[in-house]
């Protein structure tokens, strides 16, 4: 039995057969045929188009009911496929130049895609991707390869792929896919977010998965511990079947807590918030009191150009509508040297995490920053919006950012555009230098939210992307607990809301400790809401306070983890 390791991004267990998924890769060369075969090759092209049309029609039909928005993508693909200019262009190349159909298709579509890309309007330029998608479909059919998507699976499988594209996941048969394993992708990748929302166990970052596994291999996917067991022995299979039953039972018990009011055992009410990173409506909005973190990076990373004010405005408005009256905390752009934008040249930095990133970068690119603030402020006329700045290290940073907000508000007023005049402005606390003066920061802002992942990284001087030093990355070290305790009590004393939107808020042990340290606002992904509500329902306020106090005085993280874990087990087993 061989064991592969990976990053479990969607919890669960799956036992089953491997299905290797390879997206089609076009490999076209300039090539011609001999005279006399024009009709034959043109017919070949027309047949391929007919097949492609059928494929697209099937996808549209199967998706129309469940996700009409996604079906529209494929309707647009059909229009492109049937475009008479495409037909004429390919026909001309076949009859006049005797170009092989695949070469002709590649040339014509690529020409048109380049033409669209040159359009001044970014929305039109983005359509070039659709042309390339249709080109690939036709080329694949010409090559005689079957449509390989995840829509028509014959049996239950565990999908193994290098990576999954949005178009793959859009068409995926959720009833047949028991698990997902990919070679690349992290906790915030598209695949991670999607599998979590579908509750499909998934393990990403499994090196060489596609080469090591074969179609039909029996495997166990343990997306709790983060491993894949190849060719498992009978006893192992039996053990995992039992684990699966237990996991399902636990999930069911936990899910009963989903729509319960968040209360601890002694009756104190706290708030649960939702972290979101796109404009898709999701169930999570129903079970929360606020949106504690709305990441806006998707608008910038998923685009071929700097997103316009109007596009951002529409997206922010959409999230406010999704939130059903709950306040939405919009975090301004949080990128830097490690995450680059295709359309923006950023200098390579030796230490991107200590570099010109997030708020620092925005203050350096005032046009970009103002555009986002204008969009956010305009959206604030349509629901309760709050604006939050990431990567704040000093009071100077807060004042600089607030000055830009004031300037933008003035502009909007002159232009007669509506916005919420009393909009709340807050900060992320993730740099220790601002955490240490939380009492002073609280005087300058309306609220704050702690990013526990980055706070750990900066407090412990540990690059969290570096796998060789993970043991130094301690989110619940005594130093972390003491820092958090000070931050919470400073903000609570000032009467300003403080929340945690980092991973610690949705960790079993973390949630208990945070509550004991004085936190009452926990923001997390939808998948964690029920579990956190359940864990906190097991403790009284007094108990959590005692636990937190003891933990703060322990010497090592290991001691703290062991101690709190035992307290949880006392109440669950």
């Amino acid at each position, binding site marked *: 039995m061989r064991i592969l390791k990976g990053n479990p991004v969607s919890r669960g267990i799956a036992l089953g057969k491997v299905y290797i998924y390879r997206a089609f890769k076009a490999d076209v060369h300039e090539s011609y045929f001999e005279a006399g075969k024009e009709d034959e090759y043109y017919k070949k092209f027309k047949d391929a188009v007919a097949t492609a049309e059928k494929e697209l029609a099937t996808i549209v039909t199967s998706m129309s009911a469940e996700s009409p928005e996604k079906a529209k993508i494929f309707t647009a693909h059909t*229009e*492109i496929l049937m*475009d*008479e200019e495409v037909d004429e262009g390919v026909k001309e190349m076949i009859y006049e130049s005797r170009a092989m159909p695949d070469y002709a298709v590649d040339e014509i579509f690529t020409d*048109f895609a380049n*033409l*669209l890309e040159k*359009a001044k*309007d970014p929305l*039109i330029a983005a359509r070039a991707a659709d042309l390339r998608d249709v080109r690939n479909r036709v080329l694949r059919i010409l090559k005689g390869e079957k449509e390989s998507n995840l829509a028509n699976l014959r049996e239950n499988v565990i999908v193994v792929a290098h990576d999954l594209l949005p178009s793959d996941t859009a068409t995926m048969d959720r009833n047949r896919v028991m698990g997902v394993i990919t070679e690349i992708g992290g906790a915030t990748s598209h695949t991670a977010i999607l599998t979590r929302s579908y509750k499909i166990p998934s393990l990403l970052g499994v090196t060489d998965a596609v080469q090591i596994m074969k179609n039909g291999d029996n495997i166990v996917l343990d997306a709790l511990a983060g491993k894949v067991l190849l060719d498992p022995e009978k006893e192992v299979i039996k053990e995992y079947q039992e684990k699966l039953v237990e996991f399902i039972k636990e999930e069911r018990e936990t899910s009963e807590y989903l729509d319960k009011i968040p209360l601890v055992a002694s009756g104190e009410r706290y708030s649960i918030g939702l972290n979101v990173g796109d404009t898709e409506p999701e169930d999570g909005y129903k079970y929360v009191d606020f949106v504690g973190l709305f990441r806006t990076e998707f608008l910038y990373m998923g685009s071929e150009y700097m997103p316009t004010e109007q596009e951002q405005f529409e997206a922010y408005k959409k999230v406010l509508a999704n939130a059903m009256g709950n306040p939405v905390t919009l975090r301004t752009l949080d990128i830097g040297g490690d995450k680059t934008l295709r359309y923006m040249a950023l200098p390579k930095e030796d230490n991107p995490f200590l570099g010109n990133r997030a708020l620092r970068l925005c203050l350096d690119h005032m046009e970009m920053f103002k555009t986002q603030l204008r969009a956010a402020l305009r959206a604030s006329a349509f629901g309760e919006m709050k604006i939050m700045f990431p990567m704040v290290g000093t009071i100077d940073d807060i004042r600089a950012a607030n000055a830009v907000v004031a300037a933008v508000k003035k502009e909007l007023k002159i232009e007669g555009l509506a916005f919420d005049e009393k909009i709340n402005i807050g900060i992320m606390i993730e740099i220790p230098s601002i955490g240490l003066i939380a009492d002073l920061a609280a005087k300058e802002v309306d609220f704050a939210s702690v990013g526990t992942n980055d706070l750990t990284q900066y407090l412990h001087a540990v690059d969290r992307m570096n796998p060789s030093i993970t043991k130094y990355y301690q989110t619940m070290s005594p130093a972390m607990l003491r820092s958090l305790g000070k931050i919470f009590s400073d903000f609570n004393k000032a009467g300003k809301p403080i929340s945690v939107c980092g991973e610690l808020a949705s960790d079993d042990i973390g949630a208990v400790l945070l509550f004991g340290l004085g936190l009452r606002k926990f923001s997390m992904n939808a998948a964690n809401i029920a579990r956190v509500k359940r864990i906190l329902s097991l403790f009284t306020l007094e108990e959590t306070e005692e636990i937190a106090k003891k933990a703060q005085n322990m010497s090592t993280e290991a001691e703290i983890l062991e101690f709190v874990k035992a307290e949880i087990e006392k109440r669950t087993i």
Partner: protein
Amino acid sequence: MYSKNTELKNVSGLHARPASEFVSMAKTFESKVTVRRLDDEAAQPANAKSIIKILAQGLSVGTPIEIAADGPDEQEAVEKLFELVESKFGED
């Protein structure tokens, strides 16, 4: 040959849904139908039955255009497409 000038009045211009509607309507006529933007001397008439060519024109709100048709149903084609543009494609 029959033609008429107008300008785009709907906010989103001629892309996405309005472009699709415009092209599907053009396809219902036998005549050759073209659209040419009038604010650019160098602009060539674009095949109105091709979604790709229409998109590539980058026609946004306020762009003056000429709709032209040549063929047996040229007048009807131009009038119908003209009406569609005037109706703002149902946008308010």
